[in-house]
C-alpha cells in the first residue's frame, strides 16, 4: 500500500472498480445459489444494507426472473463493546419479515475487520430461526486484523493494512460517490 495522507485519506477503489467488484460478487452468488429459492440476503445495518441493495439491484439486472428474499439486521443490542469503550451505540431498524429456518443465509457487510460485528450478527440471527447455512459476503476483507476465527466466503477486495488504519466504504446514499477510502487512523467524525 502507498502512503496515506493524514487528513483526507486515500481512495483505494473508485466507483468503477466498485461496480466491477459488485458484478463479480453477483456472478459468484448466482453460481452458488442458482435461482435463490431457499436462500436469503441479509444486510447488516447500516452500510451492509446499502451493499445488499446494490447486490440485489445487479442480480435483478442479470436475471429479471429472480425472486430474492432479503432483510436488514441491526446488531446494536448484541454488540460485545456495549459499555466497554467510549463509543455510544445507536440502534437502527431490523426488518426481517420471514423466518430463516432451513434457509441458506448470505450475510452482507461492507468491511470485515476484527470479526466482532459478524459474531454479534450470528448471535442476532439465531432469533429468527435455525438457518441451513450462513455465508459471509464482504466488500473489503482486512485479513490480517482479525480478533476472531471468522472468514468471508465472498470478497470484493482484500486490504492489508496496519491495525490502526481505517477503511471506509462511501455510498452515494450518504451524499458522496461510491468509493473505498483508507485513512491512517480513524477519523474523529465518521
Amino acid at each position, binding site marked *: 500500500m502507498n502512503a496515506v495522507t493524514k487528513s483526507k485519506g486515500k481512495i483505494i477503489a473508485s466507483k468503477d472498480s466498485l461496480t466491477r467488484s459488485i458484478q463479480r460478487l453477483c456472478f459468484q452468488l448466482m453460481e452458488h445459489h442458482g435461482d435463490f429459492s431457499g436462500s436469503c440476503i441479509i444486510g447488516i445495518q*447500516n452500510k451492509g444494507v446499502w451493499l445488499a441493495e446494490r447486490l440485489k439491484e445487479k442480480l435483478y439486472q442479470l436475471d429479471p426472473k429472480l425472486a430474492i428474499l432479503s432483510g436488514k439486521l*441491526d446488531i*446494536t*443490542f*448484541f454488540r460485545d463493546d*456495549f*459499555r*466497554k*469503550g*467510549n*463509543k*455510544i*451505540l*445507536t*440502534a*437502527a*431498524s*431490523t*426488518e426481517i419479515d420471514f*423466518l430463516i429456518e432451513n434457509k441458506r443465509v448470505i450475510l452482507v457487510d461492507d468491511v470485515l475487520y476484527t470479526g466482532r460485528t459478524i459474531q454479534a450478527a450470528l*448471535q*442476532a440471527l*439465531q*432469533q*429468527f*430461526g435455525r438457518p441451513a447455512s450462513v455465508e459471509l459476503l464482504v466488500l473489503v476483507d482486512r485479513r490480517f486484523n482479525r480478533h476472531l476465527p471468522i472468514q468471508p466466503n465472498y470478497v470484493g477486495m482484500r486490504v492489508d493494512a496496519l491495525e490502526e488504519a481505517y477503511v471506509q466504504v462511501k455510498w452515494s446514499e450518504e451524499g458522496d460517490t461510491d468509493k473505498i477510502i483508507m485513512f491512517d487512523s480513524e477519523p474523529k467524525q465518521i
Partner: protein
Amino acid sequence: MTNQTLTGRHLIGIKDLSVQDIELILQTAEQFKEVLQRPIKKVPSLRDITIGNLFFENSTRTKLSFELAEKRLSADIINFSASGSSVSKGETLLDTVQNILAMKVDMIVVRHPSVGAARFLSERIPAQVINAGDGTHEHPTQALLDAFSIREKKGTLQDIKVAIIGDVLHSRVALSNILLLRKMGAKVKVCGPPTLLPKFIQSLGVEQTYQVKEALKWCDVANVLRIQTERQDLQYFPSAREYQQYFGIDRALLDSLDKEIILMHPGPINRGVELTTDAADSKHSIILNQVENGVAVRMAVLFLLANRPLSN
C-alpha cells in the same frame, strides 16, 4: 444516524427531558418493539448490569413491565416490596436503598408514595435512578408509553388533541403526560369535576373543561384516569355513582360522537366508575396496546441510560 444518548444520568421526570431525549427514547422503543415480535425475545445488552426494583407502593403493570423489560435485556434483577420488609420496622428510605446498593446494584427503579423520592435518591446514591412513580408528582415511563402508543396510531404527536379526563389532581400520570405532550407539540385539554382539577392548571399550557362530552367531541385521543381513592383525604365528589353519571364514559357516549377517538387508560380501571365495561373493551380502546408498548419503552429507557461511555 448520529450517536446519541440521553442528557441526564437518571430518569426522574419528563420535566428534565429534552425533545431530542424523548424522540430518542421513542425511536429506540420502536426497535425494541420489533425485538419483542421475534421468536426469541431476549437481547444480551445489559448482561453485566444489576437492577433493583424498589416498590414502596403497590403496582401490577409497572412492576411486571419493568421486570420483563430488564429480563429481556439480560440484566440481573432483585425485587423489593415495602410490605413485608424492614420498612415496617422503621428503616429509612436512604438506609434501605444504601443496604441494597451494598449488594452491588448499578441501577434502581423506584416507586414511592412521597413526591420527590426518586430525585432525593438520585442526589445521594451512586446508582442510576429511574422513577416509576413518586406520589402525585411524575410517572415518566407511563407518559412515554402513552406517547408511543398515540404515535403508533396517529403517526405523530404534533397537533394531536388529547383529553385527559378524571382525577387530574392526584394523578402523576396526568402531570407527566401533560409535560410530555406539550413538549412534543400536542394539544391538551383536562376534564373533571372542579374539585379534581388543580388550580392554575392552565399555566402548563392546557385548556380545561368540566363537560366530558365537550372534551370527547374536541379530542382525537381520550386518556381516562383512575379515581384515586387511596390518595383522597377529603370528599371530592358525593359518590362513585354520581361521578359515573357526570364523568363516566360508556359505549353510548362514544357512539354519539361523529368521529372515532382513541380511548386510553393507564390502569387499573375502576370498571363502572370512569369507564364502563362496554367502553373499556370497545374497538376504540388501546388499553392493552399500552401495556404491550410499556415493555418496549422501558427497555429503551434502560438501554439508553446504560448506554454511556464508562469515562463519564
